[in-house]
């Protein structure tokens, strides 16, 4: 019995490992292509590079004159970090209001908030662009960060509301007995208990902002404001010559922060999803 059990374990693990390697193949291929000379990337597409060169990294890092890829990393980091902090503070405040406070037309506002999730982004694109243009915010990071200060990510508010509703009201009541007001309940009771959902929000905000392409290309015009996703596309021209080597090399670098964050906080992501709103 014991023997059979371990046998089936071996089979399961073997299966999972094979599947894992299969799924990793594109990533491994990208890493290996990033150290191949440009003309060997597609003519000898095997995983093991015949020749190794780091030219792709050097060439990719100095994208265009005056601007290095480091600047794109810096810009991306600034936007991502502001977005994370802003989302954490404002979304949790909005969610707290929806979950705990009583105010007129609360259900209506909640429905409106949910509708912003369902509204396709393309419908609001041009009016939004026009507003930011009239404010003179085009080609700055303001259109990408200021809205986050106003709790505009309905998805995260919804996520947090569901989580806050799961926190027992008795805790609030005992805090009121101890003399806490609305604000103190938020800072002393709700926030400390909501760490998993806050971490989930932080991670997803970071990843989504880091990988976001469309709104960044829309609002950023000149290369000195560009972010990593825009920088990567600078190498690609579907109709002409693309520097694939540089693309792969810089893609490897741009994956590092996200991979690092994912592995460090992996435990919390699972915990956050399991304990917050997303369940059957």
């Amino acid at each position: 019995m014991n023997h059979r059990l371990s046998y089936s374990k071996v089979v399961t693990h073997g299966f999972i490992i094979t599947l894992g390697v299969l799924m990793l193949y594109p990533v491994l291929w990208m890493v290996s292509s990033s150290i191949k000379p440009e003309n060997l990337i597609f003519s000898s597409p095997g995983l093991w590079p015949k020749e190794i060169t780091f030219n792709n990294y050097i060439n990719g890092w100095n994208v265009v004159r005056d601007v290095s890829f480091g600047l794109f990393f810096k810009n991306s980091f600034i936007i991502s970090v502001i977005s994370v902090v802003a989302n954490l503070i404002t979304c949790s405040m909005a969610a707290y209001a929806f979950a705990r406070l009583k105010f007129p037309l609360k259900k209506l506002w909640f429905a409106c908030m949910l509708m912003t999730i369902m509204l396709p982004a393309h419908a609001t694109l041009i009016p939004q662009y026009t507003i930011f243009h009239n404010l003179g915010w085009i080609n700055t990071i303001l259109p990408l960060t200021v809205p986050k200060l106003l709790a505009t990510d309905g998805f995260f508010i919804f996520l947090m509301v569901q989580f806050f509703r799961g926190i027992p009201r008795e805790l609030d009541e005992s805090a009121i007995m101890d003399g806490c007001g609305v604000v103190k309940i938020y800072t002393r009771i709700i926030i400390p208990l909501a760490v998993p959902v806050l971490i989930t929000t932080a991670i997803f905000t970071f990843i989504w902002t880091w990988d976001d392409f469309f709104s960044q290309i829309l609002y950023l015009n000149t290369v000195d404001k560009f972010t990593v996703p825009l920088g990567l596309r600078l190498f690609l021209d579907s109709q002409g010559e693309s520097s694939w080597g540089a693309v792969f090399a810089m893609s490897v670098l741009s994956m590092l922060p996200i991979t690092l964050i994912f592995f460090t906080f992996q435990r919390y992501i699972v915990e956050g999803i399991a304990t917050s709103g997303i369940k059957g």
Partner: protein
Amino acid sequence: MKKIFYICLLAIMSFLIVSGCSSNSSGDGGNESKDSASESLGDSSQDESSEQSEESDDVIELRVAWWGGQERHDRTLKVIDLFEEKYPNIKIVAEYSGFDGYFDKLTTQFAAGNAPDVIQYGGNLNDYVLKDVVLPLDEFVGNQIDISKHSESMLDAATFDGKLYGLTLGTTAWGVLVNKTAFDKTGVSLPSKDWTWEDFRDLTPKLSEGLDGTYGTADFEEDGFGVFLAQRDKFSYLDGEIGFEATDVADWFQLWKDLRESGGAAVPEIQVSASQTPEQSLIVQGDVAIESVASNQYGAYSNATKDEFLLYPYPYDSETGKNGVSLRPSQFFAGNKMTEHPEEVAKFIDFFVNDLEATEILGNDRGAPVNSDVRVNLIDKADEIDQAIFEYIDLVSETSDAPYIPNYPGYNENTQLFKETAEKIYFDQSSVEDAANNYYDKLIDNIKKYTEE
């Protein structure tokens, strides 16, 4: 009861939001463009008066947008430096990116009245002309813009309803890429540059025989068909008219069927896996030794492999003695109709295509230059690959009288139709004749559908 109330409320809200959005967008867009129009009027009159009083000390800012790869960005930026040196009162703001998202962004910018002054377009220039956002250049021709050395067909390509809307940044022409390394391996001697389809039929099976796992040639597909028609003094579609018969289609597909049967052309299984990207094309992957390409891609194909490629003209039609290749525009520079400085826009575009120093820097990146003087100047200075391309373009512009034929209306659908027809024949689901007739009928229907709209 309560539930129903909320559902109704939700429905009303969503209706309000949606309708609010749509009216918002059109309202804002309209106001905005009017605003900027009146602004621009006011600004330009102010600018002029201040220029006169301060003797053009004012620095004018022009926004220039293009897409491309790293190489193009570097070269274009250098030309911009050069331009700023020559015209110190004009400052260029470069807004460049990759191709992804370029036109989405542009459309949004137009809607908000915030588009750049000089814009690079591709074959879709006519779409934007229809939207009435492109600056007609006629009044600048002869003043700021010199088109005397430009080839007529390239000017035609940017002319709509009798007005010139842009200047072509580069020309390309269909050609045949030949893998010299593969020829050397088999001992088949390279054909002469005025080869015919008969030579082509003789030589491709020999290549397939001599090479292990490599076929003589890839199917030339729809692009080849266009050239094939021009060789017979026919054309696909021009000015509301279809210029060929169903028998031409059948002849073309029969030619390729014969080539496959003789072993010269790639088997269908390989042909259908063909990719448009140079790096993943059949010839670079070593599946075939001959493929049809656009001349400006010669460099991209050559750089993706260690084999030596040569650029050949299409095989001639031995009856008419024509090779049917015509010049095609790659990209255009055109002005924004709303620009505050139309004259400077014209100056910049002219500088970009006509200045010898500028074009030397640009080289072949957007295709061979349209200005014949510029091309002559470049041939001596270019590297081997560019030289071959320029010589080829010169050859085409001198020898071929084939006109530039724009794409079919409903381009995507018709391209798909051609592909499906070819595949039906590849896999013996239909005889060549039936498939050709079917293609011809459906093509006429499609074109009707798109032109009547």
